[in-house]
């Protein structure tokens, strides 16, 4: 755990967040239903920690990230953010002009560094643009700051006149991180920051993010679909399924002793990089339901191997089963599910 956090204060508190997208049909674009992309999600992130947000495609993890940054306006709920001046503001309802000064405190790292950098801008313009937008008009000061952040992410400051095409995927992701860091943000929302990278480069970027967090007191919301990546970076992990949170727990608890059948299924589906450990358990059957037409009761019940009658009718609430471990499952107290053991170190050789 990262203990140098400013007294572990809650930096971001998301309460009952909802984001519905209307489905329109016909000539008059009548609203015939809603896609419940995010449906009553609550969690908090303390200063200096990393919350991993995992789930399969379409579960709403990116929508949450965008709602927090107010790239999307939430349908309901609150996104309480503690500003630098130690004031709690609700990002969900704040009007535009009050929002702008807050934007510099939260930044985003995008998934695909080949799509998120303008090929016609050099590094000085890319990394310097947030500075310019936020009032740093003096070109020399801006150049100095760009050189400083490029150094932070392990790129040589001489590169600042070059264009993105001259860089590899890993280097481009470092540029994206540098741009996010330029304004000294406090919260960084990283949406699948390493999934477009090669394995040998993935490790470099993950290590860089861990190191930067310690040096700069950053707080991360780390969105990913890859559980092994999340395990390396997160203090706590939230597992999502069809717009709702299935389970939140400290990382070792979640991987070692999952309480929600979906978490357990997700863990057992990860292919282990060891040919001597071949999974023999049948994988989870069926597909993820559509958030426009979710099943009744618990959304996971049609695929759940531990389903009981109550699951079909009653939606479970997120309850704390042990300190810090929240599960939304009717049978969380009785089920004992397999987790994943920890290896002492990289096991090479015999």
């Amino acid at each position, binding site marked *: 755990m990262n203990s140098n956090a400013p007294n572990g204060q809650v930096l971001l508190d998301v309460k009952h967040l909802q984001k519905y997208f209307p489905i329109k049909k016909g000539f008059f674009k009548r609203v015939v239903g809603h896609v419940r992309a995010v449906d009553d999600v609550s969690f908090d992130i303390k200063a200096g920690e990393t919350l991993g947000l995992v789930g399969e495609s379409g579960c709403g993890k990116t929508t949450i990230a965008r709602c927090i940054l107010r790239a999307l306006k939430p349908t309901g709920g609150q996104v309480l953010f503690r500003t630098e001046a130690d004031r709690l503001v609700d990002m969900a309802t704040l009007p535009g002009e009050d929002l702008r000064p807050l934007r510099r405190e939260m930044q985003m790292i995008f998934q695909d560094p080949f799509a998120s950098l303008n090929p016609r801008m050099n590094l000085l313009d890319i990394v310097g643009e947030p500075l310019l937008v936020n009032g740093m008009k003096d070109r020399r000061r801006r150049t100095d700051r760009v050189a400083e952040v490029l150094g932070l992410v392990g790129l040589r400051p001489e590169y600042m006149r070059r264009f993105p095409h001259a860089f590899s995927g890993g280097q481009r992701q470092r540029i994206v991180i540098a741009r996010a860091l330029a304004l000294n943000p406090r919260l960084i929302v990283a949406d699948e920051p390493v999934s477009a990278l090669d394995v040998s480069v993935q490790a470099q970027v993950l*290590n860089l993010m861990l190191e930067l967090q310690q040096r700069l007191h950053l707080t991360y919301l780390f969105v990913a679909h890859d559980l092994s990546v999340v395990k390396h970076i997160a203090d706590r992990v939230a597992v999502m399924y069809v717009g709702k949170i299935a389970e939140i727990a400290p990382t070792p608890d979640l991987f070692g002793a999952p309480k929600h059948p979906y978490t357990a299924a997700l863990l057992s589906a990860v292919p282990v990089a060891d040919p001597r450990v071949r999974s023999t358990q049948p994988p989870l059957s069926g597909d993820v339901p559509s958030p426009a037409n979710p099943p009744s009761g618990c959304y996971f019940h049609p695929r759940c191997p531990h389903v009981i009658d109550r699951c079909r009718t009653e939606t479970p609430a997120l309850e704390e089963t042990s300190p810090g471990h929240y599960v939304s499952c009717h049978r969380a107290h009785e089920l004992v599910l397999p987790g994943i053991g920890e290896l002492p170190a990289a096991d090479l050789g015999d």
Partner: protein
Amino acid sequence: MACATRLIRTVSPMTNSSPLLSVRNLKTYFNLDEGVVKAVDGVSFDVYPGQVLGIVGESGCGKSVTIKSVLRIVEKPGEIVGGEINFRSGDASDQGLIDLTRLDARGKRMRSIRGGEIALIPQEPMAAFSPVHTVGNQLIEAILLHQPVSKQEARRIAIDRLREVGVPSPEERIDAYSWELSGGLRQRVMIAMALSCHPKLLIADEPTTAIDVTTQAQVLNLLRALQQQLNTAIIFITHDLGVIAQIADHVVIMYLGRVMETGPVDDIFHRPKHPYTKALLQSIPSVQAQARTPLPTIAGTIPHPFNRPTGCAFHPRCPDVIAGACDRHIPALHPVNDPQPVSCFLYHDIVDEEVAVR
């Protein structure tokens, strides 16, 4: 892991049989205005009947170009400039070895092999299907091309194949469009299409990269079951070492167009020899690792194809580099009679490359 058991590996399948596909010193180059990109530069490997061969490598290592060369679908300006691709075509007679590099890529013989005897499961099922034809039409088209059957017969075969790969209510799904199916179903239909003509060799190009983990586990289970049932040989291309450990019998590790190391899956994962293999295995994030631990990394980045290093392509990033050898000479895949040959001067002396190929 509680849900997994240790399985005894079937030791080197069918050692007495001859390879189904034997690639020798394959070179596929792209002649661009900026220079020559040696995408595949002297690759050799064998695939035996009923074997799952995994080809692993990062982007730009030439794994996709290798299989495109085997299927003879390398786009211009790419060109096979050397080497042999020997495929045992036709009936079981061992005399039927033909060199695919000598065939006309658009000729009748190659067209009957491609899709008939060697089938492909492409990476992105959404992009591989036509959105304006039903999946059934596309399946039936493939069957009619390679088998002497009537349309009604082909439709019946298509429905049977869909049932085999676990598509629920195949009689209805056959008339669905690809965009009406979920990612997992779409990939199942793709597998049904690849298997529709009972290929001897199935090439799966990152078949699970674009889909979610729970669906990936379903598709891997299906491929494993079908492979055991039909005894098809599979070349499985991926960058995911976890997937390779779960499905492959034999592994080829590639880096910048060359084979770094090859061997049985257990040896590659538990007794890796090449420094690149070792580094790659250490740098993958693992669900079994301790939470919040930095990973060992491979220094540097993959070189740009125009800036290929001299000597061994991995030497600028290699922790065990031998000055004077690795940066000047290209190591060949050695020793020849070893089940786990490596191209690395740590294991053999500098030898003449051309001699070393076989």
